């Protein structure tokens, strides 16, 4: 090592460092130690540890340098490998930590309540998001408690069954009700499955519960609406755009006598008679397409009887979730009762007009006859007023029975009311009888004429006289129809003289009653007192009161 001839085996890149170290050692006389590559006989550089120490004499003077070079290429290789695997380990640890962070953030952000239970069903883990939805403030307080205990009613039974299923290696789902830790009731959709260990056997249980309270409430609201539709008294139905019907409620089936089983075979048009179906096709449905609504009166057809049913037909489009039209819906109201009432109203109105005109025609005739036969205007005035009053009373009695009949006794009572009524001087006897409306006005007028005559000239004009008014019904024998008899007999009055002139009174009494009752009407004038008899078929007079 005296000289510098060794430089030739050094790596030229490293040589300046080696030279600097060696020069420094020579100058200071300190030992030299360094690792550097040297070229071996095979021409390959290998790492060598070179140590050179100074050798001094007894006086301490440097005598020489002694050194050796040790090939350390093998140790260096191991060290490098060691460093590399350490780096790999660090990388693996970092990846693992990242994955764990990812998984726990997934668990944390999930709104599902993710739990791990032991095989006895006790809580060992609950995800962060799960603690939030279950309103858990401190998992420590529930950790280890039996999970099924959180469920009420049927949910508790389901939860226990799910645990048993998971223990035996199968999954189980159910919907149940459980309160959160804050006591708020919630509906949950729960999936329970086993967690398998390395041996493939369950060594834990995974339970994932989703809060479905909102959708459950929607469902309940929908169910309620469905029940309203089902139970509505209105006809409710739905059809596709091509007119084929896919829904009818019970009221709909009832209204048109339709068997629900045949629903797949009918279209909108089948619910209408042909001409109405044309209007629906050409006017109603196009209006629904244009205006989203149509409502009006139409006629339905009864499937069994073909009866036409007047309805208020209201139609609107049915859309899917995207607002796309998929068909038509109708809420249709049966208005038969209203139509009947309207018809009845119209009928009554017409009837009223008819009766009014008829009564006016009668009044016109009575007035005309009264004036024609009166001796003077003053007596005509008095007679006409009394006759119109009699007509008014008869009208009252008729109106009480909706102009369908008139109580005979009621007519009699009213006619006698101005003369003290029925009693000692006016004796009345006869069964209850309802007169036909068409004979009533004439009968009331005749009764009025008889009474007026009796008061003026007959039995009621003198003290002690009286009138017997009796009527009876005889049941016809040998298949004859029952007959109505009426007898007016004046007793105890002045001696009667037959009238010279037949005036309005006798015309009303005889001719008119003969015509109205289609029977015999007879006025007789024996001196003992006036007698009037009426004999007619009961069917032409009226009817017995049952």
């Amino acid at each position, binding site marked *: 090592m005296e000289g510098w001839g060794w430089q030739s085996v050094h790596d030229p890149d490293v040589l300046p460092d080696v030279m600097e170290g060696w020069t420094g050692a020579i100058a200071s006389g300190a030992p030299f130690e360094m690792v550097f590559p040297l070229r071996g006989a095979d021409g390959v550089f290998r790492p060598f540890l070179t140590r050179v120490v100074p050798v001094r004499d007894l006086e301490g003077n440097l005598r020489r340098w002694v050194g050796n070079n040790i090939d350390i290429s093998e140790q260096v290789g191991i060290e490098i490998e060691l460093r590399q695997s350490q780096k790999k380990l660090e990388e693996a640890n970092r990846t693992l930590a990242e994955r764990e962070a990812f998984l726990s953030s997934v668990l944390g952000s999930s709104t599902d309540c993710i739990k791990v239970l032991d095989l006895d069903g006790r809580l060992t883990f609950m995800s962060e998001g799960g603690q939030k939805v279950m309103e858990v403030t401190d998992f420590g307080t529930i950790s280890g408690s039996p999970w099924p205990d959180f469920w009420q009613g049927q949910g508790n039974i389901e939860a226990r069954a799910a645990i048993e299923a998971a223990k035996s290696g199968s999954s189980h789902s159910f919907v149940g009700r459980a309160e959160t830790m804050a006591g708020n009731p919630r509906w949950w959709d729960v999936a329970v499955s086993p967690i398998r260990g390395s041996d493939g056997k369950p060594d834990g249980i995974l339970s994932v519960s989703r809060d479905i309270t909102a959708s459950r409430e929607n469902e309940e609201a929908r169910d309620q609406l469905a029940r309203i539709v089902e139970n509505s008294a209105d006809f409710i139905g739905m059809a596709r755009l091509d007119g084929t019907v896919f829904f009818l409620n019970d009221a709909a089936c009832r209204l048109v006598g339709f068997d629900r089983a045949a629903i797949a075979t009918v279209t909108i048009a089948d619910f209408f008679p042909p001409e109405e179906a044309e209007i629906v096709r050409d006017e109603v449905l196009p209006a629904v397409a244009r205006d989203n609504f149509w409502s009006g009166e139409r006629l339905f057809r009864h499937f069994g009887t073909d009866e036409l049913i007047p309805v208020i037909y209201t139609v609107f489009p049915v859309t899917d979730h995207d607002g796309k039209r998929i068909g038509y819906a109708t809420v249709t109201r049966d208005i038969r009762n209203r139509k009947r009432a309207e018809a009845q109203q119209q009928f009554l109105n017409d009837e009223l*007009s*008819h009766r009014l005109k008829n009564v006016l025609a009668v009044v016109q005739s009575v007035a005309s*006859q009264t004036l024609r036969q009166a001796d003077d205007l003053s007596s005509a005035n008095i007679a006409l007023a009394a006759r119109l009053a009699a007509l008014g009373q008869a009208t009252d009695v008729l109106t009480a029975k909706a102009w369908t009949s008139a109580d005979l006794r009621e007519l009699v009572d009213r006619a006698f009311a101005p003369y003290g009524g029925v009693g000692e001087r006016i004796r009345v006897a006869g069964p209850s009888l309802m007169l036909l409306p068409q004979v009533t006005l004439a009968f009331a007028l005749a009764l009025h004429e008889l009474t007026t005559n009796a008061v003026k000239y007959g039995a009621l004009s003198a003290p002690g006289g009286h009138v017997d008014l009796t009527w009876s019904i005889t049941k016809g024998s040998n298949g004859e129809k029952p007959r109505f008899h009426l007898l007016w007999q004046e007793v105890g009055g002045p001696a009667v003289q037959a009238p010279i002139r037949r005036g309005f009174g006798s015309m009303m009494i005889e001719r008119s009653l003969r015509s109205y009752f289609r029977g015999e009407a007879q006025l007789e004038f024996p001196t003992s007192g006036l007698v009037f008899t009426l004999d007619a078929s009961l069917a032409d007079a009226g009817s017995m009161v049952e």
Partner: protein
Amino acid sequence: MDQSISLNGRSILIVEDEAIVRFNLADFFEQAGYHVTEAESADEAIVILNRDSSISVVLTDVHMPGSIDGLKLAHYVRDRFPPTVLVVTSGESNPRQADLPTDSVFVPKPFDPQLVLDQIKRMAA
């Protein structure tokens, strides 16, 4: 039914089920110089018409009991006795002109007999 002597040779048939009204019309037309025949139904009127060819005027109500109403009677009269003067009257809704026979007139009830008489005279002229 009352048969009275016609002063002017004209004869009227009054068909009316409301007797009080019928009697008054009969009185009125008798005083106007008509020979008056009364019927209380269309069925009775047909019997009379077939028996009595002298009737030149028929005044009929529409709604009457019987197998046919006054409107059918009017058509019958127009078909069977074409020259007859026809007056149809009713207290109910006015019939459409198309429902009436030709050369007939409808008079709503109650009516003024004098105006109807004038109408009949015009139609007969």
